[in-house]
Every structure is written in C-alpha cells, then in structure tokens.
C-alpha cells in the first residue's frame, strides 16, 4: 500500500493526490534528507516519510508535532536556510517542497542572519471592479458570476491551486468530481481578458475604501523560474466591490496533553490524505464536536487506516453519519470526550470519558490505542479581513462561531464558510449571488447563475462546542497541560491565572497569557481562549466575552516586501542640477540638502574640508569664485494683485518695488516665526519672480497657494513654480565683474549701469539668453546668472572659461555658509528654528510697520515682546583659533555648574574665517543685542571656551565691498 521511502504515501490507486508522482524531489530538514513530490508541502513530505515530530515547544520544551495543514500551524515552524538569505519562522505546512529546500526546525523563536537579502521585492498597483479573496467553491462561484457580467474581476488565493477546501475532500458537482468543475471554472476565468487570477497570493489586509494588499509569492516553489527577478510582489488593489470567501479555520480542542505529536486537526488529516496522498497515521481516533470530522473518519477508513473510535461530544450525532462510519468499519462514542493522551514523542493512545450536558465528566471511560488523534473543535469563520477594517462580528450559536454581524452592506459580501455556511450548495449559492451583486453594483448588471447539483458537505447539524474538556483530577486553575495556544505554550491554567489577578477582559487575558500573539494571531487559539473565558466567567456565550482585535496582516510577510524597491539607490529621489556631472568631475564632495545633492566643497589634491573651504572663501573675497545655485526655489507670481499679495506674504513691502529691481524678503508663519526668505524680482508691473531657499521651495509654493485659494480667492494672482526652468550660478568676488563682463558681452556691468539689486536680460557668449542680477549673499560684488535649465552645463563651462585666467574657483555650500556668516546673514533653518521671529534676528528693518502681513499679529503676543528673548549676535572666541562647536550652549562665566545650569543661548553657526584670520560664530543669545561686549562661556568637552558677544556682522560692516573695486 505504501512506498518505502515515503512509508506514509498512499498509492495512486487509493489516492492520486494533487502531486506529481513522476518526480522525486528532496528537502533537508535539520540535516536529514526528506524526499517528496512536487505538490507536497514540507509538512506533507515529512509526514509521508513518517516524521511528525518537530521542534520542542518554546517555554516548556515539550515534544510537538505537525498539527495543521495551513497557516494556523502552531508547531512546525522552521528557519529556511537555502536561497540567498535565511528566513525565520515559516510554517512547514505553508512551504512548498522544492529541490534544495533546506530548513532547521525551531522552537517558536527564529533568527535573523547578517547575510544581505538580495532577492527582489516589488509592488504593483491595480484596480478592479470586483476582488474576490479565496478560491474555494464560494470564491470561484463569485468570480464566475461577476466575470460573466463583464466586470473586471480579480480572484486571489494563497494556495497554488484553485479549489479551497474542495481539494481536501471528494465532493461532486453536477455529477462529476469537484475538481472537474474547478478546472472548467479556472479555464473560463483564464480565458476572460477582464479577469486576473492570482494564486500563491495572500490578501494581507482589507483596508478602508476597499483597498487590499496582496502578497504574491513568485519564487520558492516548484513552478517558479530558476532565479526570478522578483521573489515576492505586493499588490495594491483598489476595488469597487470586495467579496470575501476566505473559508473557515478548524478549531483545536482543549484537553489534557492535547499538544502531543500525533494530535492533528481533523481537516488537516483530510487535507494530507486527499491533497498529498499522505496518511499521517494508521490508527486514528477522531475526536469531534461537529459533523465535519466524520468525513475525515470516512476518508481514513477508505484508505485502509483503522479508526478505533469516533469520539463525539454530542449525545446524538446525525444518524446518517453514524451509520455511514459504522458501515465503513468504525464506531461512534457519543457524549464523550478525550481526556488524556498517552505516548512520549507520539501519541500512543487516548483515554475517553463520558461528558454530560453540563460539560462534566461522567464515570464512563474507555481507552483506545492510536498513533493519530484527529480533533475537531468546530470551525472559526475566517472573518479576519472583514473585521480588520472595522466590520463587526457577532457570536452565532448555530454555527458556534463568530460571523460577520448584519446581513447587508459590507457584510453581505462575506460568503461561504467565512460567514458560517458550511454546506457546499450554500457556498456556491452565496458565491454566485454575491458575485452577481458585486458586479451589478460596480456597473455590470448581471444575474446569478443557477446552482448545480452537489453531493459535498451538507448543511451540518448543530455542533456542540466544548471549550474545556475537564481534567480528570484537577481544577481548571491547575490545567497546565491543557494547551490553548501551543505556539505560546499557553494553557487553561494561564487563563485562570489571569482571571485570578482580577482580569476579566479577553484583551487582558490575551496580553497576560500571550495567547494569540504568535504567528497564527488567534486563528486557531483565539476562539478557544474566548470559550474557556466565557465558561470561567459563566458568561451566556462567547459573544459576551467578544474577540480580541483583528489586525493586518492576515499572515506574516517579510518586511522587505513592504519596503519593495524603495531601498538603496531607489530609497528616495536624488535631485541633481544640470551641472551635476561637472561637479563630480571637479571632485566635489556632496551634501544632502532635502533631496538635492549639492557640492559641499571641492577639495584639491589632499585638501580636507577645512583647507578647501578656506581656499574657496578667500577666492571669493580676493578673486572670483562660482557656485551652482540652481537649487534655489523660484516661483513666478503673476496678476494684477501680485503686489498686494506679496505685501501680505512678506514681512516687508514689495508693492512699491520698481520694475527691474530686486529685494530681499522674509516671510513668517501665522505664528510670527520665520518661514523662509529670499530675493524677489519685479519683472513687470504684474509679474514677480520670487526665490526661496533650496529646502523651502515646495513648502513656500504650497504656502502661497493655500492663502490664495482658501483665504484670498478674490486676488488676481497666479503662482507657477519655475524652479527647474532655470539654472543659475553665483559669480562672486572682486573679479566677478570681469568674468560676467566677458560672459555677457552685450551688458554694461559697470557699477553705474548695473546697480546693486538690479537685474538685466541679455544674451551670453554663444547666444544663450540670460537674466543676470546683482545680488550678494557674501557681501562681495556678486552676480547671479540665470539661464534656461538646458543651458546649465554650458553656463558653467562658459563661466569657468571666462574666469580661467583669474583662477575662478568653484565653491560649495560650506564656503557659502562661511561667507554669509561673516556678513551676519542668516540661513533659515540653521540660524533659525521654528521659534525665531524676524525681530529676534535683528531684522526689524524688514518688518513693515505700515501694512499687515501674515504673522504680524503674533509678534505682539506677550511672549514675543519679552526683552530676554534670544537674539542673533556674533560670537568671538577669545582664543582666535578655537572653533566653537555648532550647537554649543553658552552660560554665564560665574554660574554654578551644578545641573541644571542656566543657559543663555546657543551657537547656530561657527567657522574658520579666511578673511578674519580667526574663528567666529553666530548665536542666539537671550537679550543678546544688549549684551554686546560681554563675555560668556561655552562649556564644551569638559572645558570652557570664552566667548565675546559681538555684532553679527564681522566683515565689511560698511558694505564697501558690495560694488566691487573701483573701476578704471
């Protein structure tokens, strides 16, 4: 009857199974070879080879065995070792057997490896009129009906084949084996262009507004290509209608030593028999509370196994079933329960006692030898996806399970076993009806097809759940071998322990006992815990206790799948300017500014940053230097009300700015705190070009739009982002006039003709149209040359050529920071945080007294007029070579250093200055402007640095250098 390498494999004549018998493949478990067939799971292959025992339990080290045939598996958890990266905690029941598969068994704890996961994970975003989750009879029927209506349908199932529980049994549909019906349906769906069927695809979550997340396994199974680009794919699906046909999970039973290897869910036994042609035991006691396990018994008997007893908790199981099994050679013990199991590493026999209507044991007892105990504690409709997004469930005493509450709305689209319908005809009928309705509601009117004749599961008689089979000698408080959650090693005693502390809520019990917090997330342990609790609290029904919360994901998935392609190089956009490659060639060291890569400095030879920055700064102050400023934000602001608009946005006035001129502006939030700054030019009466900081570009545009659209829709103003229309360089230094003169031969760049804060449009050498302004962020004579972005590269080249004999020096953000700090110019975000006003910065000159602007009202709040607010000042370390660390706080020299030490403020910017030939800093110091000349201390690295408070303008306070050297 059995083959020798797979002693428990049934002959094809007895059970063909859904395996490929032409090929033998091998996995390795804990170093031992496990042969099997394509179509096997790792668990079925192990069982075929006679291995039922897996790793011992997590807390108590008890022997454990394969318990289920699905994602509820508590025991058979393995660490996968083959492939490019080990993967922890996979249920052997869910791993498809494959050549080269290598695992080690675990005890409820996995491990992470330092090996990089190099596999591919990606995402896909699709839409569907109807998504059907679960391809059992109900789901298939729903898909057929919806697809026939013309809707776009997506059918997903976590398994490799369609069919659901039909594959576990031997039902007939329309007079033929159900598999034929499945095959026909699969073909029909495959041929319909509007249908997408995804197998090996688990719906992880069903979120608000019909959004589903589906994890598809494209590798690690025998049908996968050898090295697929994408190992797993996360489908994001937006559906118009969702049909949940997710089936039901069989519940274990809670009795003494119910965790012994060889105790197995009855449905799992059936699944191994029929799907995998594996007989997990030859002498099997069946212990049940409902009808479904009779099919297990019949299937076992049909393969030649012995069934010493069917132990049914019910006094009167349906006669039909009792007679069927009797005819097949087994007998039923009614009003009875298994109270104990024997055996060491595998169950060797069970003890059975009578159980009365109150759930108490009676005197009657018997013992049966067995090597398998198939248990069925009833069924839990798989309401996870339904409940996750807020669907309510209720206890249904007839099906003895939690089912979707209510008949209409979203709950109508839960069908089949998932809503407690356990007869095949009913599943098909609900599937057809819901599929047709879903299609109709999504715009494809259609009627449900007629339900074919079936002979599968019939309407079951009422189950009799027994939450706790009493111990023969001990009270529930002492039931330390009655396992409720095998994975967490949690028992009935633990639940009672929780109750003993005063806990009453199932939520507390879950957290106290850790029941349902493992991989199965309560799919099998949850309702039993509720039942035990309901009994203990004498609640009328488990419904009064309620469930814990159902949360995504439905089954665990690798974190890398959620990350998808968003890692490494693709983690976040890298933004570059058109001159980027020229900076790279010049050896620039880059800095991340927002998403931009900006050159920080350009080391020459072995220069470090310090040396390079000093050189770059001194070029700007004594010769000519050039910086790529293409990253600055630019917004064109157009309309007859543009002047008024800018007046409301900026703290200073812009309405009176003359056409052809530019002005520095500052803007605040409504709270009066500095938001951004920049120079805006007036291009025409009704047209300005605003510039923003690099990091502030998007924020400022949003800010402008928000005010325009939500508060001032009456203003005739339009904003257009032109940040990327332009590329620009700042040409800085006494020699900049010469360079720009050469660049722009048509332009008179003399101080007289081209005044500070003016701009001109011209054509550069090579015919490149440009707008050139005289703005300066360094205090030196400086020009900003703007060209259409596609000329950026040419502009850089031309500028470098024009300045080559003057040793024109590219400089980066760091030198820019130093140069502006020498002049006391602030960088928003560095010298300000979200708590600094323009007044704090000493920029009262930019705060209009005459007009209102956003934030103005806030500036007169009590806290904002305090004299001791921090104010921007300069800071000079007494020792001219000591560099204050940025972020250092300053304290009064004589203050006690016992914490908390009162702080006077902190250093915002600190540099070596080539021009000053010393170090210097800017800082925000309480009442700072009144304290110029005073000395404070900066405690850093265990010593004090003495610092004098100064004006923040260190360099050329008269502004003599702004117009450059005298000409002529």
């Amino acid at each position, binding site marked *: 009857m059995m083959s020798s390498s797979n002693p428990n494999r049934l002959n094809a004549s007895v059970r063909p199974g859904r395996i490929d018998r032409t090929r033998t493949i091998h996995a390795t478990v804990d170093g031992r070879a496990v042969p099997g067939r394509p179509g096997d799971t790792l668990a079925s292959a192990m069982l075929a080879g006679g291995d039922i025992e897996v790793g011992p339990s997590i807390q108590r080290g008890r022997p454990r065995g394969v318990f289920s045939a699905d994602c509820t598996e508590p025991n058979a958890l393995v660490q996968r070792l083959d492939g490019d990266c080990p993967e922890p905690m996979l249920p052997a029941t869910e791993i498809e057997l494959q050549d080269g598969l290598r695992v080690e068994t675990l005890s409820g704890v996995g491990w992470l490896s330092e090996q990089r996961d190099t596999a591919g994970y990606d995402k896909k975003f699709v839409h569907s009129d109807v998504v059907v989750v679960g391809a059992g009879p109900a789901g298939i029927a729903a898909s057929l009906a919806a697809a026939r209506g013309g809707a776009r349908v997506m059918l997903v199932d976590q398994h490799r084949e369609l069919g659901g529980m039909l594959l576990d049994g031997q039902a007939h549909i329309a007079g033929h084996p159900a598999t034929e019906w499945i095959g026909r349906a699969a073909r029909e769906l495959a041929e319909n262009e509007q249908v997408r069927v995804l197998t090996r695809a688990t719906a992880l979550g069903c979120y608000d507004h019909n959004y589903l997340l589906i994890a598809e396994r494209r590798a690690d199974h025998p049908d996968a290509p050898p090295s697929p680009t994408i190992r797993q794919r996360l489908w994001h699906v937006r559906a118009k209608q969702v049909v949940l046909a997710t089936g039901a999970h069989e519940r274990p039973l809670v009795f003494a030593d119910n965790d012994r290897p060889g105790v197995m869910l009855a449905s799992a036994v059936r699944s191994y028999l029929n799907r995998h042609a594996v007989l997990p035991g030859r002498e099997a006691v069946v212990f049940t509370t409902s009808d479904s396990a009779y099919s297990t018994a019949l299937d076992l008997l049909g393969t030649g196994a012995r069934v010493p007893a069917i132990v049914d908790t019910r006094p009167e199981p349906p006669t039909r079933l009792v007679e069927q099994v009797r005819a097949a050679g087994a007998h039923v013990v009614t009003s009875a329960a298994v109270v104990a199991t024997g055996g060491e590493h595998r169950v060797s026999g069970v003890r059975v006692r009578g159980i009365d209507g109150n759930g108490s044991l009676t005197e009657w007892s018997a013992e049966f030898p067995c090597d398998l105990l198939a248990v069925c504690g009833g069924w839990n409709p798989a309401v996870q996806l339904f409940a996750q997004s807020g669907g309510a469930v209720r206890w249904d005493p007839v099906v003895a399970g939690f089912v979707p509450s209510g008949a209409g709305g979203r709950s109508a689209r839960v069908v089949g076993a998932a809503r407690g319908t356990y007869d095949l005809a009913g599943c098909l009928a609900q599937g057809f009806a819901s599929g047709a309705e879903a299609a109709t509601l999504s715009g494809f009117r259609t009627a449900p097809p007629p339900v074919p004749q079936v002979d599968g599961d019939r309407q079951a008689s009422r189950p009799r759940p027994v939450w706790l089979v009493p111990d023969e000698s001990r009270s529930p408080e002492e039931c330390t071998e009655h396992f409720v959650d095998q994975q967490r090693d949690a028992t009935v005693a633990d639940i009672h322990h929780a109750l003993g502390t005063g806990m009453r*809520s199932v939520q507390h019990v879950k957290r106290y006992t850790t029941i349902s917090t493992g991989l199965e997330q309560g799919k099998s342990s949850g309702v039993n815990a509720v039942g035990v609790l309901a009994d203990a609290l004498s609640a009328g029904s488990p419904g009064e206790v309620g469930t814990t919360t159902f949360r995504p994901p439905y089954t665990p998935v690798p974190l890398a799948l959620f*990350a998808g392609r968003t890692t490494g190089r693709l983690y976040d956009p890298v933004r570059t300017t058109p001159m980027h490659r020229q900076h790279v060639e010049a050896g620039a060291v880059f800095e991340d500014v927002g998403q931009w890569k900006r050159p920080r400095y350009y080391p020459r030879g072995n220069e470090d940053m310090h040396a390079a920055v000093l050189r770059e700064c001194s070029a700007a102050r004594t010769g000519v230097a050039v910086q790529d400023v293409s990253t600055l934000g630019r917004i064109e602001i157009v309309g007859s009300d543009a002047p008024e608009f800018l007046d409301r946005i900026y703290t200073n006035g812009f309405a009176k700015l003359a056409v052809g001129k530019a002005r520095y502006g500052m803007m605040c939030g409504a709270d009066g705190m500095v938001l951004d700054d920049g120079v805006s030019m007036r291009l025409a009466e009704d047209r300005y070009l605003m510039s923003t900081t690099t990091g502030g570009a998007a924020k400022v545009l949003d800010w402008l739009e928000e005010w325009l659209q939500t508060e001032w829709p009456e203003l005739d103003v339009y904003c257009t982002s032109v940040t990327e229309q332009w590329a620009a360089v700042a040409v800085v230094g006494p020699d900049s006039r010469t360079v720009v003169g050469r660049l722009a031969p048509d332009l008179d760049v003399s101080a007289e003709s081209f005044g500070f804060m003016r701009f001109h449009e011209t054509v550069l050498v090579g015919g490149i149209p440009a707008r050139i302004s005289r703005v300066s962020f360094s205090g030196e004579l400086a020009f900003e040359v703007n060209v259409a972005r596609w000329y950026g590269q040419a502009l850089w080249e031309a500028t470098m050529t024009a300045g080559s004999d003057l040793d024109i020096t590219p400089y980066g953000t760091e030198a820019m920071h130093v140069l502006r700090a020498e002049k006391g110019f602030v960088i928003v975000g560095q010298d300000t945080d979200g708590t600094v006003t323009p007044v704090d910065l000493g920029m009262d000159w930019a705060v209009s007294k005459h007009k209102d602007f956003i934030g103005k009202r806030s500036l007169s709040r009590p806290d904002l007029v305090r004299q001791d607010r921090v104010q921007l000042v300069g800071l000079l370390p007494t020792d001219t070579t000591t560099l204050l660390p*940025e972020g250092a706080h300053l304290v009064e020299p004589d203050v006690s250093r016992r914490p908390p030490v009162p702080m006077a403020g902190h250093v915002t910017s600190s540099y070596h200055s080539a021009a000053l030939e010393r170090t210097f800093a800017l800082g925000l110091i309480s009442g700072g402007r009144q304290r110029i000349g005073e000395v404070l201390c900066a405690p850093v690295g265990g010593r004090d640095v003495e610092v004098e408070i100064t004006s923040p303008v260190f360099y050329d306070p008269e502004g003599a250098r702004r117009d450059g050297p005298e000409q002529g």
Partner: protein
Amino acid sequence: MVADGNTPAPPERLWRNPEPKRNYDVVIVGAGGHGLATAYYLARNHGITDIAVVERGWLAGGNMARNTTIIRSNYLLDASAALYDHALRLWEELPEELEYEFHFSQRGVLNLAHTEQEVRDARRRAFANELNGVDAEWLTPDEIAEVCPILDTSPNLRYPVLGATYQRRAGIAKHDLVAWGLARKCDEMGVDFIQNREVTGFLTDEDRVVGVRTDKGDIGAGRVGLAAAGRTTLLTDTLGLRLPLQSHPLQAMATEILEPVHPCVVMSNHVHVYTSQAHKGELVLGAGIDTHNGYAQRGSVHVVENQLAAAVELFPVFARAHLLRTWAGTVDVTPDASPIIGPTPYENLFVNCGWGTGGFKATPGAGWVFAHTIATGAPHPLNEPYGMERFTTGALIDEHGAAAVAH
C-alpha cells in the same frame, strides 16, 4: 509571567472589580498609564486614596497598550528636559517601589542624524542635556556601529548616518506590565478601577465641576482629573472648553519572536522610523502619525510601508523578519507637540493631555506632577510651563520646532 511549571503559583491580585461608590474625593478619567500613575502618586505622595479611575474600555487598553515603549529624557528645552528626566529618575526607582518586574531595560537610545542640519540640532540637544544634567553623548558612525552593529553606518546609504546622540540611561519597558504594576499598588491603597464605563460629561455647579456623568450613571467627585489622551476634547467640548488638540492615528508594528539581534533603541527622524527588540523577542517598529484626524485606531498602509522601507534601509538584517501585526492608537497632538498639564477655567477640573506620540516615557513623571496639581489645585514647578495659557501668550514649548525631534 506565564506559568511554566506544573503547579502554577497562585495568581497575585492586580485589581478588584468593585462597583463604583456614589462619590469620590477624586475621579480620574482614563485608566491609561497616566491615569494610573496619577492615582498612584495621589495616594503615595498626597495621601488621597478615595479615588475612582473610570475607564471606558479595559484598563490600560488605550495608547498604553499600543506604544513602542521608548523611554528617554534627552530633550532640548529646559522645561522638557526637567519633566522627562524627572520621569526617567522615577522609572529607575519604580520596579522596586512597585515590587513588580516590568522589564525596564536601560539599553540606550540612539537618535540618528542624517544631514548636516540634523547633526547641528542633535549636538545642540546633547550640549543642552549635559548642562541640564541629562546624560547624553554624541557618537560618530564608528562608535554607533559598536553600540548597534546591525545598523548600516556605511556612507553609501541614500542618507548616511552622520552621527547620533546616545542616551545610555534611556531604554524600554514592558508597557502592559507597567500598567498592571501601577494598578496593583493603587488597588492595594484602595483606589477603585471602574472599567467598561464611559465618562460622557461633567456634573457642574456653575463654573465648578462636581462629578462626572457616565454611560451607566453619575459619579460625584471633589476633583476630576482628565487623563483621556486621544478622547480628551470629546469631554472638554461638553463644557465648551476648547483645547488645542488634534487626535491622530499613530501606528506601530511587531514581528515574530526572534533571537536577540537588536541591542538598543534606534530612532531616526529623517527617514522616520524607530525600532527596538522587546523583551519577548519581537522587533517593535513605529513611525510618525497619520496626518489626518481620526479615532478609528487604524491608519493607512502607506505609512506602514514608508516606515518599513526606512527600517530595512537602516537595518538590512530586518529584510526577512516578518511583519506579524500592525495596529494603531489615537494620539492627541498639540501645536507645539508638548503636553498640557494643569488647571482649567473650571474649578476642580484638571487636564493632562496632549502627550501625542511621546507620553509613555513620561508616565511616572506625568502622574507625579498631575497628582500634585490635582491635590494642591496648583501646578508643580515642573508642569508650570505646561499650562494652556501658553497658547495665548505664545510661550510655546516647541520641542518640535526647536529641534525637530519626534517624541
């Protein structure tokens, strides 16, 4: 906790489940961490034990059941450092004081900096911490790699780790056990926990609050302390008292149980994720709020995807750990991301709220000062700056704005 022998020890009582009396000296609304700690310190420090803690659901089932349990005190601003460090010092005493093991583990917290500006901000915070007596160190990438070898500190990351502040005294604690430990001591001292009872409004006598209305009848109270976190405004709205709070979903997630790999706590603001490995072995991950208001205790999945992308980016070893469960709480966020603790315009009504994404770490500290405020009718010096007047005067405690550090 879980019995692991054959004869389980008899359970220790954590709390009774009494019927409420008609009146209490103090009614606290909300049996979250803060409500529990407040009751505890009212009894311990002020001798007030005639207290009912009224809870709409199950004890500590709100944010207390949902947070990523990070405890640290390395805040920038003086007011914050003082309050949170007070809390941290209480945490250090609490296991012994409560005689309850709640796995308080001072394994150290790293706050990563990924940009030059973040470096400046982080160092500024570390310097301030030092002067405020809060332990803080600045670590270079090499030093970080020693503290947390699984963190990718290579310069090739999209946003390389440029440094981190490190607070060694910081760490995590098992949130549920903290709640149960506090509840147990409170119960011992006579505090009543009234679960499954929702406070729906207040009993008032002109501008004085004299009790609470609940869905199952009124309860009189000498004083009422609100510790209702995300649902605070639902109650204050009934008095026409408008608080600057917005309730947002905040999500977190856990993996399966894994052998120890992650020795500390890592927080990254820039890529937005924070992670640690809980006592039991699961990795716990969290991130920023869902931006929309919401009471649904669930958030949007793209938020989860973004934070997991960040986690895998920083911790390549996490790639094949499995996402086991995601969940969300409802956090109450103020405009300056600092709490509101103090009296209200209603006599005998006090609020403790606005802890947003970061109130677990403050649990004992918050309880301490809120108990003081309720008992004496006036704020403790530590919560003086935290009154709601600051939104009028502008004296915000803008830890967010000032240092961009999430809580």
